[in-house]
């Protein structure tokens, strides 16, 4: 088992999803069990399903000096960066530590592939149309390179792309960079936008529900795809002793199948073990678990096998019924929701589930609850059997 790590302070964070822009919009929606899924109106020939679409991405624009980065994914990243004082917090961190002493580690599954798809729809005699002849947006690093340019972060800039665990793993990578003293702070996060690749791709795998997804419901029949931007700024705790903390992280591989989880949840257990060991706590100390809970038959069946690890008082929910599965952004979005649970004393409900799988009933939170949360865990599992688990905790009291 890994050794306990020094916790890190989360000095700023924010999320933008189908629930709205920023922390307040998310808190309001979670408290009132108001979901954000809507009828799919994306692409020229929309599939019959629900999506978690961020309103107004099309109408937003990048500043003129960043216009060469323009694409749907970077627009969503830019909207996300402007919420909850994130840009100011990053600027203060750069001033405090120096631009090369702040790392940028972002997760994305498809980045700006929507623009590459668009180029193929509008080929000009076999060539990309003039407005899309921009190599920097036809790469999975597009998001991170844009955010580095937009924020002035000049430290190591990495993109992690491990499908749906991408932006959970960024917390682990950033923590290691800070632990070794290579940087003093890191902006982490994830952004993924709706695109035909994921809508038709998950459809081809017969994993998309025609209805709003129903995580952990006995009648669940697949995911709803969403889009989101989530960010968190990590620094050593002396910078902000009262800020909530990253206590631990765990990563594992299933070594089983490219698109189906290990039947006994071997990788999910291993990631949880690792994360708890780094946090130096027992599973019984966890107040709230934000489950991966995609609402596919297999994911939820396997993830339910992890629930008995937790104590009788632990509450658990998937929030994908609110936002849809935001894929490479899910880790960061749901980390922010776990932080909201701690900071605002709320257990988000498992929206969309009316008949819970019996084995989840002791833990599953079906209604929103106001409750003190000191320790929250977030699970993220991706294609290729790639698993990550994060543990967050309350900061020092006033």
């Amino acid at each position: 088992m890994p050794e306990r790590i020094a916790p890190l302070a989360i000095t700023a964070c924010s999320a933008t999803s189908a629930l709205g822009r920023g922390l307040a919009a998310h808190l309001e929606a979670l408290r009132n069990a108001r979901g954000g899924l809507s009828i799919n109106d994306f692409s020229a020939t929309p599939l019959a399903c629900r999506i978690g679409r961020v309103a107004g991405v099309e109408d937003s624009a990048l500043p003129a000096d960043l216009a060469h980065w323009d694409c749907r994914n970077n627009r969503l990243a830019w909207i996300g960066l402007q919420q909850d004082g994130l840009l100011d917090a990053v600027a203060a961190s750069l001033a405090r530590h120096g631009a090369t002493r702040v790392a940028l580690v972002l997760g994305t599954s498809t980045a700006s592939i929507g623009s590459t798809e668009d180029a193929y729809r509008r080929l000009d005699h076999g060539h990309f149309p003039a407005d899309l002849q921009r190599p920097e947006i036809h790469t999975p690093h597009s998001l991170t390179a844009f955010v580095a340019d937009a924020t002035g972060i000049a430290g190591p800039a990495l993109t992690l792309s491990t499908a749906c665990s991408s932006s959970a793993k960024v917390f682990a990578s950033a923590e290691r960079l800070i632990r070794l003293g290579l940087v003093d702070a890191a902006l982490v996060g994830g952004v993924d936008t709706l695109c035909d690749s994921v809508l038709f791709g998950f459809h081809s795998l017969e994993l998309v529900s025609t209805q709003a997804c129903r995580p952990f419901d006995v009648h669940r029949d697949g995911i709803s795809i969403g889009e989101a931007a989530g960010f968190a700024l990590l620094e050593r705790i002396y910078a902000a002793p009262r800020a909530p903390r990253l206590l631990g992280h765990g990563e594992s591989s299933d070594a089983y199948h490219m698109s189906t989880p290990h039947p006994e949840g071997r990788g999910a257990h291993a990631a949880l073990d690792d994360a708890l060991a780094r946090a130096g706590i027992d599973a019984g100390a966890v107040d709230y678990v934000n489950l991966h809970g995609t609402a596919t038959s297999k994911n939820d069946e396997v993830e339910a096998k992890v629930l008995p690890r937790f104590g009788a008082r632990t509450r658990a929910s998937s929030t994908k019924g609110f936002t849809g599965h935001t894929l490479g952004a899910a880790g960061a979005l749901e980390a922010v929701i776990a932080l909201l649970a701690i900071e605002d004393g709320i257990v988000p409900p498992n929206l969309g589930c009316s008949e819970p799988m019996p084995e989840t009933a002791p833990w599953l939170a079906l209604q929103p609850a106001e409750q003190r949360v000191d320790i929250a865990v977030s699970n993220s599992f991706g294609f290729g059997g790639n698993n990550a688990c994060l543990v967050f905790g309350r900061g020092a009291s006033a």
Partner: protein
Amino acid sequence: MNAPLRVIGIGAWAPGAPDWQRLRGILRGETAPAEDAPARPSGSILPAAERRRAPDGVRLAADVAAQATAMAGIDPANLPCVFASTQGELAITDYVCETLAHAPLELSPTKFHNSVLNAPAGYWTIATGCTAASSAVTAHHCSFAAGLLEAAVFACAENVPVLFASSDVASTGPLAEMTRTTLAFGVALVLAPRGSAGARLDVALGGVAHEPFLGDGLALHGVAGDNPANAHALALLQALAVEKGRRLRLPLSPGLSLDMEITF
């Protein structure tokens, strides 16, 4: 970084140099690229069922990773791994975009799940029974340096050996004009945080990088222009081939370089 690393395993694949032994000879000026070398990576470590489904990018990464772990004599089952790539499976991206433009409902589910950047990590962990952490890193033309940093940091922070593989296949279709990658090239290293076997590798962050040093009289000059990110590995590989100490500086991000010192 708090500790020097040791390079205890090396793997490579390039046209005319399907393994490290051959590439090492070329970099030492002792042999020429093999005329009869296979045109595609074999993916021979993958179980037959997986190999049938595995695209070239996965086979390439698996080939170099298998060479490096075999040389290191380490069971991959417990070895954390970091796979880097500039673009992932370019031919599949081309297929997916082409299909979506004309017949989106005909998209192949296998090709879709092979399109994720962590397909090599997924196939590798399945083939080797690896349950340790696996990752997929990208940073456009700095992908080799970024992946090496991620792997070196993991090895030092967790005090365990780490497999690092960096590879890209050639692009096809209209996308090719945007990617500049015209030939397949991959490299893998097993980095160990302790011990005395293998070359010593010290890694640090440095100032702004100038054009990277790509090696003198390199028989594989073509790689430099045609596989931009992984060509950054060539100077390191050449130092490992001739077993001569060297300092290297690779671009890591617009404001930073990855500085390496190899000693024997």
